[in-house]
């Protein structure tokens, strides 16, 4: 899909956008061990929640840019007038958004998890849960970004709209790691995130495409 390629090319030309998201994630996750102190047991308990909340906030940080640049320069108009399905174009943009903002977080998470003294298998579960969960964040975020397009103060509004929808992913994502650490089976958590991913893959592009049409009218 050439639209993914285009968005990646744009991201390469503007690396600062990508790096700010990643560094935001790294700094937020690192602040906790520094502020709480070297209390290993407490850090281990906190870790899944902290990493997941940081991932949520980091992916939210870049949501505003998902459509607004295209909106301002008129590319979005052309997308609406394209003979290709708008839902597919939105899906392409969401995938590109994930590759640029979500995947670096997934790759970084195991390294950051070491700060929290997580055992190796917990690090692995954390990474897998993020791998399944962060695409959901980009997909649901696309709906919020499309709805708030062109509104003043859209940035704050998008967080109010989207954060509540992120909660299920957060619960099961952090839950999977906690379950693993307390020796319980965590398959159910990961399956549920997988189910969220499939549902949002089908519904989110369609919903975002419809909101884009409304926003541009």
């Amino acid at each position, binding site marked *: 899909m050439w*639209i993914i390629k285009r968005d990646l090319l*744009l991201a390469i030309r503007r690396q600062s956008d990508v790096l700010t998201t990643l560094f935001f994630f790294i700094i937020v996750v690192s602040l906790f061990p520094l502020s709480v102190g070297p209390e290993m047991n407490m850090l281990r308990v906190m870790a899944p929640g902290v990493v997941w909340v940081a991932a949520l906030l980091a992916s939210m940080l870049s949501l505003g840019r998902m459509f607004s640049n295209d909106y301002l320069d008129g590319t979005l*108009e052309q997308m609406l*007038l394209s003979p290709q*399905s708008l839902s597919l174009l939105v899906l392409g943009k969401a995938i590109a958004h994930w590759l640029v903002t979500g995947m670096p977080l997934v790759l970084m998470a195991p390294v950051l998890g070491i700060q929290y003294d997580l055992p190796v298998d917990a690090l692995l579960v954390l990474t897998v849960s993020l791998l399944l969960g962060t695409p959901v964040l980009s997909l649901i975020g696309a709906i919020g970004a499309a709805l708030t397009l062109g509104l003043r103060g859209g940035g704050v509004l998008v967080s109010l709209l989207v954060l509540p929808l992120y909660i299920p992913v957060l619960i099961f994502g952090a839950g999977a790691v906690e379950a693993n650490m307390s020796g319980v089976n965590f398959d159910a958590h990961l399956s549920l995130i997988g189910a969220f991913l499939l549902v949002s893959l089908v519904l989110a592009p369609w919903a975002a495409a419809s909101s884009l049409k409304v926003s541009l009218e």
Partner: protein
Amino acid sequence: MLQGMNLACVRGDRELFRGVNFSLEEGGLMQVRGPNGSGKTSLLRMLCGLSNPAAGEIRWRGTAIRSLNGDYFADMTYIGHLSGTKDDLTVIENLLISSALAGFEIDMQEASEALEYIGLGSRQVLPVKVLSQGQRRRVALARLLVCKTPLWILDEPLVALDVMAVKLIQELLEQHLKQGGMVVMTTHQEIDITAASITQLQLA
């Protein structure tokens, strides 16, 4: 054939126009005229399907465009006020992407020839952000050369262009009309185009 039947446009609680009728045949050019704020751009956005008319219907070859969707978009090229170009991409990348978006996948060779024609031959690999306003306009208009659609809807295509470019675009329009294409455009400039039929649509 593009037909507008009894179109009306309402913005907020103000009615911009009502009862607008027109019919555009193959090879015909329709120039939409009117003072600033009379709804020219609103009419054009309606015609390309970006917004819905408050009343009335737009038909393309006898079918309402609302029920045609993608099929209509494949027959139509719209160039609006916004250029639809990406500042961070080069001129040629912009053309390749915007034509792919319009459903016409072209290769470097074709893109390069189109840019040569439109007068940007030596600037192909520059990012669009360093170009002047008129040059950006040319990048947007280069799409007309590679997207072979029968209907062109152009909102102020000649704005910011120099005399040479205006002549070039007029030639391009003439050629398109001669081949049976259709053009709907707004412009405040006098245009010098010979076509089978030229109609003027005056908005109050």
